[in-house]
């Protein structure tokens, strides 16, 4: 009888192995090879790629840059997404229209939208600098200055993905029970007090989920960087995934890029696990 149980599980297990475990194991195997433009195939070079990675400052700098970018963009998305969700949660006019409108950026193709943003940020011909000049403000080097380019990438990311945060948080708000709000109103709590004492704590579980999902997505940022800045100026906007792309698909250092990818995956799993625990501790403890 027990054998039948495993037989029924077999199709699911096979799918799991083929689409998740095999690529992962294959990546690990490739990372232990010298597969390169010059050396096709899976020869065995042990941990050479990992040793090389340890002294690859560009990779570690890209990782640090990614951390700042991911934390900055996701927190901004959370604040803005929450604000927008609160706005349309209330009974306001044209509520349905705004709910759809706020989702539009998320529904657009990231590469196409980044091309449009690149045009908007164009320092010669873009509308932003034109508007600034018309009100006697100086042009901003949106893409050619390292710090500004970093901020420009963040702006595009926030614009594109705030709607995702909005969607999840709005769903959370709509699912909240009415009783705590009625109780708070009876106790004379104002809107700010109600938000911090009732709404925000009640939204803690969904907030954690939304933040974690977005952290995972933000840590993979590639298309925005690729189209907007190509990682430049210098390496000012080069993130881990873009750097791995360069090493793997431009330079065709498949073995080394696999080592970088696997290391990056491990770092992300550990980091996001810690972040999830911390968020749970901070937000959930507060809500109870």
């Amino acid at each position: 009888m027990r054998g039948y149980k495993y037989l029924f599980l077999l199709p699911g297990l096979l799918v799991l192995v083929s689409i998740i475990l095999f690529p992962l194991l294959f990546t690990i195997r490739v990372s232990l090879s010298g597969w390169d433009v010059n050396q096709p195939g899976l020869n065995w070079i042990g941990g050479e790629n990992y040793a090389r990675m340890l002294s690859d400052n560009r990779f570690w700098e890209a990782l640090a840059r990614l951390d700042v970018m991911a934390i900055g963009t996701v927190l901004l998305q959370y604040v803005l997404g929450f604000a927008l969700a609160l706005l349309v949660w209330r009974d306001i006019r044209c509520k349905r229209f705004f709910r759809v409108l706020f989702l539009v950026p998320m529904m657009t193709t990231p590469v196409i939208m980044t091309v449009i943003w690149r045009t908007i940020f164009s320092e010669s011909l873009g509308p932003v600098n034109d508007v600034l000049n018309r009100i006697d403000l100086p042009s901003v080097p949106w893409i050619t200055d390292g710090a500004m380019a970093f901020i420009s990438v963040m702006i595009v990311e926030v614009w594109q993905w705030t709607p995702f945060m909005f969607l999840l948080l709005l769903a959370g708000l709509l699912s909240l029970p009415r009783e705590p709000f009625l109780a708070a109103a009876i106790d004379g709590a104002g809107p700010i007090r109600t938000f911090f004492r009732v709404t925000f704590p009640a939204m803690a579980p969904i907030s954690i989920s939304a933040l974690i999902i977005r952290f995972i997505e933000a840590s993979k940022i590639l298309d925005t960087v690729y189209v907007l800045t190509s990682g430049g100026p210098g390496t000012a906007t080069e993130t881990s995934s873009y750097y791995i792309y360069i090493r793997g698909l431009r330079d065709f250092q498949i073995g080394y890029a696999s080592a970088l990818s696997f290391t990056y995956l491990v770092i992300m799993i550990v980091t996001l696990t810690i972040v999830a625990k911390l968020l749970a501790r901070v937000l959930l403890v507060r809500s109870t």
Partner: protein
Amino acid sequence: MKKCTFLLPAIGVLALSFSLPVRAEDGIVDYSKYGDYAKYGTVKDVPGACSYEAIAKKHYAGRTLRIIAHAVPVLGEPADLHAKQFADLTGAKVDVVHVPFGDLFQRVMIPFQTNQEAYDVLFYGSLWIGDFHDFLAPVPKAYQDVSGMRDVTKTHKGIATWGDTMLQYPVDGDRHYMKYRTDVLENPEMQARYKAKTGKELRVPKTWEEYNEVAKFFSGWDWAGDGKPHFGSAEVTKRDDLMFSAFISRVAAYAKNPNVKGGFFFDLATMEPQVNNPGWVKGLEMFIDAKKAFPPGGGNFGLGDEIFSFGGGQALMSYSWDDAFIQATEPGNPIRDKVATSPLPGSNEVWNRVTKKWDHFDIPNQVAYETWGWTSAVAKLSKNQDMAFDYLCFFSNEANASVDLKIGRFGINPYREAHFKSQYWAGAMDWSQKTADNYVGTLNWIDKSNNRVFDLRVPGVNQFMTAMAAGVSQAMAGAKTPQAAMDEVAAEWRRIVDRIGKDKVREAYANVVALEDNER
């Protein structure tokens, strides 16, 4: 029914004749089925082994030709157009896969390395021959003898050749040169203004120092009289967007010493990278200095931005591939007939890596940079090599090449002797004779020059170039000094050479040096 079967071939021929892309009565190519290409002028089939007439006699019905090409329109559009025509002529099924440039290398290389017969015909950057040569089928002698191929210039045949074997089928020719606005540099009022301010004559720059000086003078004010500020120089500066080619253009004047043989990127004897020698560093310093003359955002210009900036009239000067010049000369462009070309500026001081001293040249050392362009090849594993070579032969026949050259977005540039004659451009392109003479003069100067640099056509060229672009970009951004940045690039190049194998890189690099040193 049986009685009627003898009619079937006749019906087939009749049906085919209605869909043939060339008119039977006068041999004029009929583009009505394929798009609005007829607006670029009438093209007549040119008799020969690759002509419409000859290819129509081939029968490839029931066979499929698989092609990989760059995304539309650059190269992708002509690949598509001629694939459809080829299919109509021969009955073959032709599948064209379009890939963005950033993915093209790996999409070609992975099937090669894994022994998959994924594509028959490959269109790609000619600088990758160092990586691809083991996987390409040699161009058969019969195709090397067709009229179109015989007319390919010696330089471009050299680019298509690895060792003594022609592996790439030439479909394009590229070089870097300078473009400038004649309505400014030849304007007496501007010349007087420049002299009053600098005490120097305003002329077409012969050195990069002069180029930067003129560019800076003409930056930030309205020298075009259209009420907008204009700028001195538009250059390709975006990392990983062909900036490495712009940098080589600038460096060659300082680091390619005509009296020193045996390598520009490396010393062929020792395989020691030269990228951090004083000549290269000086080139980088001048690149950085030119930032003062860039339009806003010019520090992050890709090739498209450079084309638009010069071709759109924003910048006084520019240098790179033909595209910006072709755009500037298109009918309807306000700066048409106000632009001209010149060889890349040079330098009076050139680094000698043997004596470790600067050599002085009274006449500036102007170097011809025969940069990479599009090329094509047939995969060695292809089972359709006959059809694949016929397609390439057809793609580049004289009639097709003449229309492809006229359409700027196609990215096809001169590579045959016929293209180096001013009558060709004055006639086919409707340019003024002066513009045509000037353009062809520059092309010929480059093609006939004995002081040339080529791309680093060795295994792992992308690794070398991305390392170089990263270093240059960091210096341009002010994150590192030029010397420190190039020292890092040299260190990275040594590591790449060690990984790939010094002998292997040297053997490949010897092919490049043979071209540079005019030994081939």
